């Protein structure tokens, strides 16, 4: 970490929640006036040249986490020019975007209150505002539960943005249809719930009764998507056990599960179970 990044990190790491975004924004503006990025790039290029096995951490082909702390994430993101985006995503945390390589265009939307976050309300349509230009090196704040940002690109095929994400609480973003602007699905940043949901699905497809004890345990998981996927898997393995599972979820705290249980019981009542 170079001196500028260390100063930035130390200044905001322990800020209080209440004014975190705005105080961090001031420090981010100060950071942008420095040569932190050139020093960072030069430092990495030197290591790449001198160390055969140098391996920058926490990165992918399009992302590079410069700093990843309990308070925030500072990331370089390589963005391709928009090509018929089908979806628009909101995030459950405050975010600041800074275009680093050129001016960019973006659409800004107002998000009708997405609460409770874990219950998607498909009637809450995004409210579009005009397409706007964001100048190079200018920070743009995206406030959680209020603002939604959709990137269109600049004059080049690719741009590099600096993305600053505040305190990534484990929660849900809402994904919208880019044409209708109505919400389509929840997006979780809880990797564990996504892994467990996938595992339940896999166990259901494999169809082995030895999976049932674990799957029944998952019916009590704190994440509703895991609970429902466990019930689906149990039903795939054994109908009677599946019926038992959905009855256990009949009074679930999540309305989507209660609705799914009701629909399932209605369908089952029409089956010929002789």
């Amino acid at each position: 970490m170079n001196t500028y990044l260390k100063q930035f990190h130390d200044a905001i790491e322990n800020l209080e929640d209440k004014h975190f975004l705005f105080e961090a924004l001031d420090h981010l503006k100060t950071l942008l006036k420095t040569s932190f990025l050139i020093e960072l790039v030069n430092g990495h290029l030197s290591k790449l040249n001198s160390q055969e096995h140098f391996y920058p951490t926490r990165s992918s082909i399009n992302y590079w986490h410069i700093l990843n702390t309990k308070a925030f994430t500072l990331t370089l993101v390589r963005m391709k020019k928009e090509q018929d985006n089908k979806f628009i995503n909101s995030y459950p945390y405050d975010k600041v975007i800074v275009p680093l390589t050129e001016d960019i265009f973006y659409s800004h939307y107002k998000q009708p209150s997405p609460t409770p976050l874990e219950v998607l309300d498909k009637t809450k349509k995004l409210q579009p505002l005009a397409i706007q230009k964001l100048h190079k090196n200018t920070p743009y704040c995206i406030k959680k539960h209020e603002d939604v940002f959709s990137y269109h690109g600049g004059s080049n095929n690719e741009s590099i943005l600096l993305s600053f994400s505040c305190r990534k609480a484990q929660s849900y973003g809402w994904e919208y249809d880019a044409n209708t602007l109505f919400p389509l699905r929840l997006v979780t940043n809880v990797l564990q719930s996504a892994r467990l949901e996938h595992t339940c699905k896999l166990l259901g497809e494999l169809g082995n009764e030895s999976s049932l004890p674990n799957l029944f345990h998952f019916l009590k998981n704190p994440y509703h998507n895991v609970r429902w996927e466990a019930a689906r898997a149990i039903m795939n393995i054994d109908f009677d056990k599946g019926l038992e599972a959905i009855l256990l979820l009949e009074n679930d705290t999540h309305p989507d599960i209660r609705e799914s249980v009701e629909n399932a019981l209605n369908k089952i009542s029409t089956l010929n179970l002789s």
Partner: protein
Amino acid sequence: MQNEHKFRLDELSAPVSPQVSAESSSMSVIDVTTLLLGLIL
């Protein structure tokens, strides 16, 4: 009784997708070089 009825429960009306992030993948050296050169050029 296993699979006798072949009854499948529907997906939730509002499915949940994982957020795609850098945390699940790794960057090769060539990718870093491309990104860094993109910043410099």
